[in-house]
């Protein structure tokens, strides 16, 4: 009896307060590498970035209740797919963000499409996410391999470094990175004088570096990733390659890699990123807040992308007054993006987020003023040119 009364009472209370707070509960899953080689560039930092987006948006005051959960996909597609499936089926997750490692990103993209949820990728590189394998439920936020190739390849050739040599990891990702970059280099009037493939993962790069050194190329393009890139750069430093006048171009490298390598080893490396903490006052202010929560480590572009993506998602949830995936995604694509980190931008119909990219050169130790002062900006690649034109991607959604 008393129980029924209490039940009625609480029901009445809920109805009484209901209209005042049309509360939407949103659950965000941050899925990334929390134990392997991409921990530094994604990992816990992405959770912090997502949390900052929720705070900055003022979700609680706007009647949107946000819960953030996270998990480690160990860079394996099978683990990523089973976590994503479980999150959508059992835990009521509405949005998955981050997901570095392209193979894992494809797996999550497929499941998100099947379960009709939302996936904002910040960490993975493959341009196929908005190309041949595009999905109506996936938005690719921060960068892609096409943009990196375009940035580094195009800008280097424009600066007069026409002769290229590639050191390529011998598997699908390395081949496609080499192919994309070589196309950009040739289109810009450059020339590929040679390339060599190393087994994946590799440890000894000396013979490949010697070939590169004797090839007469001006630029050595590193079409590999993670530990392979780091090892190549370390060994290149031992051969004094950049000091001897050749440039090393990292095609997929992050500021955390530079931090791990140290300026002495990494100096002179040219790379493309979409975000750097020291770009302007707004990025500096945001990064200072981020670093305070992340043990003094500055954010990577992947962290920035998670922040920006979650912010834009929450804006769309507010605009549509609910979390219906189709409506939210439509709103995300129609509403221009705006945040302190990437400035103004937009989300294209194929799911590609558009913003400026930057070409950086790693400073020499003497030029660096302190910790994390690593990059010197060489060029800004305007948003309109930075990403692959929508017609060239071959995304089946557009037909």
């Amino acid at each position: 009896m008393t129980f029924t009364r209490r039940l009625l009472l609480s029901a009445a209370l809920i109805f009484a307060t209901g209209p005042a707070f049309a509360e939407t509960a949103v659950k965000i899953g941050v899925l990334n590498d929390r134990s392997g080689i991409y921990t530094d560039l994604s990992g816990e930092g992405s959770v912090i970035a997502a949390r900052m987006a929720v705070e900055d948006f003022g979700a609680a005051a706007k009647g949107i209740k946000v819960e953030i959960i996270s998990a480690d996909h160990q860079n394996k597609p099978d683990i990523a797919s089973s976590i994503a499936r479980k999150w959508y089926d059992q835990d009521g997750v509405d949005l998955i963000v981050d997901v570095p490692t392209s193979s894992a990103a494809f797996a999550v993209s497929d499941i998100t499409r099947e379960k009709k949820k939302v996936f904002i990728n910040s960490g993975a590189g493959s341009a196929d996410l908005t190309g041949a394998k595009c999905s109506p439920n996936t938005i690719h936020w921060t960068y892609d391999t096409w943009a990196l190739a375009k940035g580094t390849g195009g800008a280097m050739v424009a600066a007069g470094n026409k002769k290229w040599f590639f050191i390529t990891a011998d598997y699908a990702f390395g081949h496609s990175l080499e192919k994309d970059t070589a196309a950009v280099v040739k289109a810009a009037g450059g020339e590929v004088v040679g390339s060599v493939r190393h087994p994946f993962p590799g440890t000894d790069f000396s013979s490949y570096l010697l070939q590169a050194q004797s090839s007469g190329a001006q630029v050595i393009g590193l079409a590999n990733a993670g530990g392979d890139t780091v090892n190549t750069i370390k060994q290149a430093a031992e051969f004094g390659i950049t000091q001897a006048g050749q440039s090393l171009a990292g095609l997929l490298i992050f500021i955390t890699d530079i931090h791990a390598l140290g300026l002495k080893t990494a100096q002179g490396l040219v790379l493309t990123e979409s975000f750097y903490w020291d770009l302007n006052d707004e990025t500096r202010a945001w990064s200072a807040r981020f670093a305070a929560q992340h043990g003094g480590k500055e954010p990577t572009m992947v962290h920035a992308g998670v922040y920006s993506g979650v912010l834009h998602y929450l804006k769309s949830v507010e605009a549509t007054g609910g979390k219906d995936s189709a409506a939210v995604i439509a709103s995300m694509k129609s509403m221009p993006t705006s945040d302190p980190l990437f400035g103004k931008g937009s989300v294209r119909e194929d799911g590609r987020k558009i913003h400026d990219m930057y070409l950086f050169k790693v400073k020499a130790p003497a030029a660096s003023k302190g910790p994390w002062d690593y990059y010197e900006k060489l060029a800004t690649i305007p948003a309109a040119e930075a990403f692959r034109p929508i017609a060239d991607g071959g995304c089946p959604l557009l037909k």
Partner: protein
Amino acid sequence: MTVANTETHPVTLPADLRISTPRHHVVIFAGLLGLLLVAPFVLYPVFLMKVLCFALFASALNLLLGYGGLLSFGHAAFFGSASYVAAHAAKVWGLTPELAILLGTGAGAVLGLGIGALAIRRQGIYFAMVTLAFAQMVFFFALQVPFTGGEDGIQAVPRGKLFGLVDLSNDLTLYFVVLLIVFGGLLLIYRIVHSPFGQVLKAIRDNEPRSVSLGYKVNRYKLAVFVMSATLAGLAGATKAIVFQLASLTDVYWTMSGEVVLMTLIGGMGTIFGPLVGAAVIVTMQNYFAGFGAWVTILQGIVFVVTVLLFREGIIGVIARWTKKAL
């Protein structure tokens, strides 16, 4: 010497050599089936399907390791290639799931015949190393050839319709199909182990020179059990590809071979139900401890060390010793 002279009188064999099915095995199988029929209504079906696939995989290895005495450190090769073939058949050729699984299983068998024919010529550690070497070759092959998609794997494999009729996109429907496949596989393994063939196998395991002297063609038995084991591992891999709609490098990597050995040892090598328990323990750990990230492998290591130090027969092995019944 005439044939009549060699005829034997009926002899009562000791309990563990008798070929007839002990009653407690029937009870356990029935109980297990009952449990698995109810389980998807309580637990997450996709998780259960993962347990089932690995239970079959571990049982397949156990057939070779526990009853044939051959430690293969390359079983991921069969598991993984079968999952690639099944995924490719279902996705690119558009075959129905049962045909895709059948093709995958066939791939496991053919590969098993090839690798087995060479590997069984060596014993002990050399046998393990030869299988590992072949598995690494298969891994390299999977990494390089275009149809496997390199490190992306084959993704978005359609679950399709069983016999073109039953839609498998529903987790629960798929679960019962997987249960049927896995349970069928387990019963087959049980039948093999308790057949005269299985008896000879155990004899070879326990004393190979004596089996040779008794006139058995030992290598043929070894090859036969190797192929059977590879086929069943292939069945598990192909089923997994349909369940998770994914075939990836993880399935052919050497850690997968290690993991399945671990499952078999933890559950109880040379017991019928041990690999099932081992698979359930390891998959549950991976699933529920996923939040600990890298610690999962360390926890697995600790469990392994504890198992080896405290109960070397494995979980079911210890229970079998206590109850004095073959499990």
